[in-house]
Each structure stands twice: as C-alpha cells, then as structure tokens.
C-alpha cells in the first residue's frame, strides 16, 4: 500500500473529493457520449491528428476557455475567503494552493493558449499563407501545451497542488520547506508546456518571415502579424531561460542538487533572478499580441487606417528590447543597493514611453474616423481608460524607493490585474468576438456581448481599485486571513463583489456562445465587419487551403484597397495546391510526455525510462518517415470554391 500512499492528497477537504467525483463523471460522460454518437473516428481524424492551423487555433481556444473557468473558480474562492475578516472558508494550506494554481493557470494555461489561439487562427490568414511553416511541429506545440495543462490540473486530486506561489521562489519551493509533490507538478507541467511554446516561437518566426504573400514587405504586414512576430522573437529568447530554470529546480527537488537551497552554497536569489529574466518578457509575450488585436479592432471600427503605423512597429520593437532589461524591478527590495535599483528604475519607467506612443496612436486612429461601437470595439474602448490606470500605477511601482512600500502588497496585485485584465483578457474577448464569425460561421449576439463587456469592465474596477487602497494601508498579498482591527474588511468585501461580477460577466459570455450557436443566422458574409486585412478576403468557412489563389498585396490593408481602390487581390489561375498530411505522432508523443511527466512528479523511475525511450522513438519515426504531403487538384479547388461561393 505504501506505493499508493504517494498519490493521496496531503490536505483533503470535501471540495476536493467533490471535484474528484465531478472529474470522474465528466470523463465518463465524454467517453460514453463519443461512443454513443460514434464520434471516435471523427475526433481522431479531424481533430487529434489535424495539422491545420485553424483547427489547432480552435483547440487552443477551447483549452483557454476551460482554463479561464478553472482559474476563475480559484479567484472566486480567494476573494470569498478574504471578503470578511477571520473567515474560516479555507485554511492557510488550501488558500496557498489556490493562489498558486490561480496564477499558474491564468498566465501559463489561460492567457498563453488564448494568444496562441488567435495567432494560430489569424496569422497565416493575415499574411496570405496556406498554413504555418511547420504544421506538424505546430500540432506538437499544441499537444505538449495541452498535456502540460492537464498534468498541472490533476495535481489537486492526485498528490496535492503546488503551494509556493506562481513565482515558486526557492528555498520555500524546495524540499526543505515543501515536501509534497505539488512543486514537482509545477516544475514538470510548466516544462512540458514551455517546450511547446518554444517550438511555437520558432514556427511563427519562420512562418512570418518566409511565407508572406507576394508584395507583403515587412512594413506592409498588418499590425497583429507584427505583434506576433515580435512576441515570438521574445519567446525564443526568454523561454530557454525558463527551461533551464525549471530543470535546475527539478534537480534540486528530485536529485539533491543545491542550486537554490539554504545549505551547501545554494543561492535563493538565483531563482528569483532567473525567474524574472523569463517572467518579465513573458508579460510582454502576453500583452503585445493583445496590442495587435486592439490595433486591428480599432482600425476596423474607426473605419480608418491605423494612425502612426511606423511608430506602432517601432514601439513594439523597443518594448521587446526593454522587456529584457527590467527584471530586477520585481525585487527592488532584495538589497542590491541604490545604484542597481536606480538603473532598473529608469529602464522600467522608460517602457512607459513606447507604451504611451501606442496608446496615443490608438486614440488618434479614432480621430476623423466613423466610430462604430460593436462588441470588440467596446472592449477596445473600455481597455484604453482601464489600462491607463493600470499602466500609470506601473510607473509608480517603477520608482524603486517608493516600491519598498508597494512591494508584496495588494497595491501590486491591483496593478498587475489592472494591466493584465484590460490588456490581455479584454483583448482576447475582443478577438474572440471579432474572429468568431470567421472561425464558426455565425456571429455572437451583439446585445449580450456588449452587456457582458460592460459587466466585466465595471467589475474589474470594483474588484481591483480597492486593492490599491488596502495595499497602501498595509495589506500584504497572499495572506489567507486578517483580523478585523486591521480595517481591511470593507476593501476586501468590495473586491469580492467585483469578483462575483466578473463571474457573472464570464457566465454571460458562455451563455452568449450557447444562445448564438442556437439562434444566430448562418447566412453571413465572408467579411461581416467590413474589415481591412487579408483574413477577411477568403470564404467563411475557410477552406483547408485558405486561399485558392495566393493574394497579391500592395499595402498593410490589402482587402480595403481591393474593396475601395480596385486593387486586384487574386490575379491568376487556380493551380494545384500542396498541403501537409495529418499525423497522429504529435498527439501520441505528447500523450507519452504526459505519462513521462506524471512519472517524474512521483519519482517512478521505470515508467520514466520507458516513456523517455518512447519519446525518442516518436522523434526517430518522424526523422525517417517519408511524408511529402499531398496535392489538392485544380478540379477539387474549383468544386470547393463554387460550393463556397454558392453558399
């Protein structure tokens, strides 16, 4: 029985047992449903083995929404626990696990796949390509992310969740102070997902640099594609740091090395430095694609070209460089002295300049426009004031002497939520609503959409503005409780109401998806928003090959020019199209990775060795496989095109 003891939850509670039952039942329902409706074959051939960037994008999207739900439940539990002083809803251990998983899930398994979803779906269409440069690698990226996410999520029912914070600072996260397997999950699950992300970085840089439509020079790329290029460049430079860091953490925890321990020369500061050398660029990995989405949405619904295209590109490049030069501001209080703090204080505040340029360019895009407030546009317009509040508090945090008072407090928590929620989450919801018709062939309901946008933005203010005050009043972050005499009670109650409002807002989005799936008209145009770039120039639903004839581009708004200035977008005749074949290897290899990770977490060495061999066998298979893809004949293209045009 000793063998099985390790899988038990160290701190069980009724909520966790209920979750176990719920997870079990859901799995049974899914398996039974697939069997009853005879959908196993469909699932395998159309989704699990697909290498189509559009389908991979949709799978990323579904995962992101699921993880948003998971991370959101964590958030509600935290705010409920803190809503009143001395609350007994959660104990310290559960609270610690919940804020840890909230952070990891929201950043790594919600925000990341959300931007991956939009990049996957949109970038190839926007540059007039037929897929990404390495379609099978792209599938592997997705499945590695997915298996990493699943591995991380089973932690709270098997073996226990990590509880050292999403930053997982050592020595707290080391075996000296965290004995349970929780932090092993952190190290291994993020590692697996991170490898997938690194591959995406390489894949998209190659795609954007090598596969743009004829005529699309770099300075004629739509802004979202530019943001994707810069983002993936950051990924390629930042993620290897995370890979090494997690490997070192894993060795400390499982193999007795002393990189970060309190004894034998371990250095706890090393973890904090490495973590933020990756972690700060990571912030920009999330926010730049969001900026790209806003650029598309604001330009489309102001019915005007994007103001200051060149400075928009320039500011993103500058942000990407500066993002690697500010990591120390995450620990001004570590004792590196006035000089170091001064340097990093200045680089940190300097980021406000290019960010400000972007903000003003969006505002000037509205100038002389013909503004139409649709749901995506509403998110963009609500983003500007909310993000400004979050952004300027970032400048305040950048003043290192004052940061000694903000650090580790609710003020900081308020700041980064006021940046990430309007910056990333609003953008992803704007992008979701904006690209939904291209993905699924019908529009989401505008009325429900706008209503939820208002609820979500107002609830964001309600949830996070009070934290600025309670932080300045001395409330440290990550405290599972506080006494009534501190006076934090009312602030936290308001925050809880805001969090509940956010839950309502997200529930409304789910309802909107249900409602629109049922009632929305399927008879929509390929370009329902009257947009400007290439992704709207092809049919809805998008055929597998994206474009029957590769588009010819003369500006960053090729479709707009075609619509208004008689630019010929698709010159020439149909030719046979070369497309990649589906493959089961990415899914199988990632599934093996899942077992590999699980074995690693629980130090099951024999399965670990076997799965490691399995992974290499999969890579070997790919190396020796002669798969040259397939051709779609001209007849087939004609038939598809005629059908789509008729529809």
């Amino acid at each position, binding site marked *: 029985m000793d063998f099985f003891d390790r899988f038990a939850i160290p701190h069980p509670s009724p909520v966790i047992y209920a979750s176990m039952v719920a997870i079990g039942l859901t799995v049974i329902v899914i398996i039974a449903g697939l069997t009853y409706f005879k959908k196993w074959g469909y699932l395998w051939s159309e989704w699990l083995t697909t290498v189509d960037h559009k389908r991979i994008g949709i799978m990323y999207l579904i995962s992101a929404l699921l993880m948003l739900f998971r991370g959101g439940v964590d958030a509600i539990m935290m705010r409920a626990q803190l809503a009143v002083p001395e609350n007994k809803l959660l104990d310290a251990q559960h609270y*610690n696990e919940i804020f840890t998983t909230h952070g990891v899930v929201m950043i790594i398994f919600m925000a990341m796949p959300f931007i991956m979803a939009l990049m996957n779906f949109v970038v190839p269409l926007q540059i007039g390509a037929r897929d990404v440069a390495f379609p099978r690698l792209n599938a592997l990226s997705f499945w590695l992310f997915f298996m990493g996410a699943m591995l991380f999520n089973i932690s709270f029912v098997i073996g226990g969740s990590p509880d050292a914070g999403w930053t997982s600072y050592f020595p707290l996260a080391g075996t000296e102070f965290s004995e349970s397997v929780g932090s092993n999950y952190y190290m291994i699950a993020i590692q697996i997902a991170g490898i997938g992300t690194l591959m995406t970085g390489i894949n998209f840089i190659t795609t954007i640099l090598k596969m743009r439509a004829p005529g699309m020079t770099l300075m004629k790329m739509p802004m979202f594609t530019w943001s994707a290029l810069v983002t993936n460049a950051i990924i390629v430079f930042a993620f290897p740091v995370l890979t090494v860091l997690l490997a070192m953490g894993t060795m400390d925890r499982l193999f007795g090395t002393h990189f970060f321990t309190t004894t034998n020369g371990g250095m706890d500061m090393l973890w904090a430095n490495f973590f933020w050398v990756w972690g700060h660029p990571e912030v920009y990995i999330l926010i730049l694609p969001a900026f790209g989405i806003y650029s598309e949405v604001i330009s489309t619904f102001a019915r005007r070209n994007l103001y200051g295209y060149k400075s928009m590109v320039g500011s993103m490049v500058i942000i990407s460089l500066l993002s690697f030069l500010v990591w120390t501001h995450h620990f001004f209080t570590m004792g590196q002295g006035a000089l170091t703090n001064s340097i990093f204080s200045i680089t940190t505040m300097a980021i406000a300049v290019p960010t400000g340029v972007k903000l*003003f360019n969006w505002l000037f895009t*509205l100038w002389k426009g013909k503004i139409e407030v649709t749901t995506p546009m509403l998110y963009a317009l609500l983003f500007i*004031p909310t993000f400004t509040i979050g952004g300027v508090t970032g400048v305040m945090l950048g003043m290192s002497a004052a940061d000694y008072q903000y650090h580790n407090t609710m003020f900081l928590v308020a700041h980064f939520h006021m940046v990430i929620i309007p910056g990333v989450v609003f953008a992803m919801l704007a992008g979701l609503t904006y690209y939904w018709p291209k993905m699924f062939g019908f529009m989401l309901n505008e009325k429900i959409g706008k209503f939820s946008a208002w609820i979500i933005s107002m609830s964001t203010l309600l949830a996070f503005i009070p934290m600025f005050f309670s932080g300045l009043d001395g409330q440290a972050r990550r405290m599972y409780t506080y006494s009534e005499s501190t006076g934090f009670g009312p602030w936290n109650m308001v925050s809880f109401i805001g969090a509940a409002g956010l839950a309502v807002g997200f529930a409304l989005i789910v309802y909107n998806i249900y409602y629109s799936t049922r009632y929305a008209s399927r008879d929509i145009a390929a370009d329902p928003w009257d947009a400007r770039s290439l992704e709207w120039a092809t049919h809805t639903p998008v055929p597998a090959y994206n474009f029957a004839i590769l588009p010819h581009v003369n500006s960053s708004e090729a479709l707009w020019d075609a619509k208004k200035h008689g630019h010929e977008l698709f010159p020439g005749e149909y030719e046979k199209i070369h497309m990649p074949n589906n493959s089961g290897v990415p899914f199988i290899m990632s599934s093996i990775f899942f077992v590999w990770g699980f074995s690693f977490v629980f130090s099951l060495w024999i399965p670990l060795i076997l799965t490691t061999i399995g992974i290499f066998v999969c890579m070997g298979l790919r190396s020796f496989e002669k798969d040259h893809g397939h051709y779609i004949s001209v007849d087939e293209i004609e038939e598809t095109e005629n059908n789509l045009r008729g529809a």
Partner: protein
Amino acid sequence: MKWALLTLLFTIAAVLTGCEPLMVLDPKGPQAATQAKDIMLSIGIMSVIVLAVFGILIFMLTKYRASKQSKNYEPPHIEGSVLVETICVGIPVLIVIFLSIVSVQSNYKVEAKPTGYGDKEPLIIYASSSNWKWHFSYPEENIETVNYLYIPTDRPIEFKLYSYGPITSFWIPQLGGQKYAMSDMVNTLHLAADVPGEYMGRNANFSGKGFAENTFNVKAMSEDEFSKWVKEVKKTAKPLTEDKFAELLEPGHLGQSTYTGTHLGFLPPPEGENGGHNHGSSHSMKAEKNDPSNESSSESEHHHH
C-alpha cells in the same frame, strides 16, 4: 446600468477613503516620509496623464461616432505626423526624466543612514526570521526579543536582516519600506522613528503556511525610556542558551519573549554584507578553521531541516 455601477463604485470609494489615513501615507519616520512624498508626487503626475487620456478619448468618442456623421462620410487616410509623434514621445520622456531624477535621489536617501539626528550613532539591531517568527538581537545592549521590537525615537536605526529559512521581507509601513531577509546574505535597512507610538510590523513576503500571522509589534519610545527598558530586561530576563534558541527556531507560532544575551555569538549571521554570499561548504570550512566562533555553523544546518 453602467452609470448605476459607476455611482456605486465612487460612493464606496468615497466612504472608504473618509476613514483613517492609509498607513503608508501616514509616515512616522524620515524614510517613510520620503517614500510617501514620492508616492503622492507620482499619484499627482499620473492623475494628469490619466485625465488627459480620458479627455482625448471622450472627445474622440463624442465627435467621431458614426451616428453623428453623414452616411456618405468616408474617413480619410492619415499616415501620422512627425509633429504629433514627437509630442507623444517628448512629453512622456520629460515626465520619465523628472521621475527618474526623483527616484534616484530617493534611492540614495532610503539606502543611507537617515540624516537630521546630529552625530548620534545608529542603533544596530539584527532582525532574523524563522518559520514564522521574528528574532531581534541588540548586540550592543546584549539582549534579544522575539516577535516584538522596542526602538528609541530620534536616532537612526540600522537593521541587519537575514532568515533561517524561506525569503521573508521585513516591513514596518509607517517607518519605511521593506527589505528581504534571506538565508545566504545579510541585508541592511536604515530606518528611524520620529514619533513615539506603536506600529505594525510584519513579514511581507509569502513564506508558507504561517505567513499571515508572521507579524510583530513595534514600539517607539524616547531614548530614556528605551535605556530604562534595556536595564530592566537585563535584570529580569533569562539568558538565551543555544538549546533555547534551537527550540525557538522550530517551525510554528510563538508569543512575545525576551532574553539576555543574543544568538549572534553561537549562531552568527551569514557572512558578508550586501553581496558577500556564503559560497559553498569549502568556504565555510576555511572560516571555521580561523574563527572558533564559527564552530557551530555546521550545527546550524540541522536547525534548517
């Protein structure tokens, strides 16, 4: 609907801010005052920026809504103008330069012995954390306290911070901002209190299960009262033995307690200061040979487990 929500929000904010002043903005010492001044200054400047952005946004939205324009209106193609871009870069650059100057000056202020106390020698206090307690050693007075801190007013105080475990952060909001206490390095934090009174002190950096209750009380009093207290402690308190200290280091929560003597003799803080790290066992073995007081350092590692 939206206005109802907004009104609700502002009413709540108004009611809440009507209460006592926020701790960080109610400084009782020079370092906290420097920080509070920076905070208020930056809030002021940032408010102007926020208002400017709100203003431009409202202007654009009222003037250029589709519903306000004729159906045939075609928005023009505008590339952007060098003048506008220069202003958009220039003004933020000036603001950042100004804030940088303020920030750098304040950095050197909060990292140095507070001025204005004549040639008074700073009082040195070693503040070390263990799961989930604070130990305060007064080497010159040769006394030690747990979870409470008595300090004299109108005299610079130099805290030497380190940790017997996870990274913690020593924070007394009304006297000044926080700094980390770590196991492999001693950090120095300069504070001073100008007003006698009781203040909240805590560990601000998450350090595990007992983190929320990892607080301590601070009492600032006149120099006379402080020396009276020191004398009394020396008369009444029990000596701090090695065994007793090992017991105190056990993970858990403790009340307040007082001892004569300090743990600095038999369990010295990590070597070096501000950058002097304890690198590897070979280093400390060398130190042990030279310095008999380090003999117990290998023993110290047992306490960590």
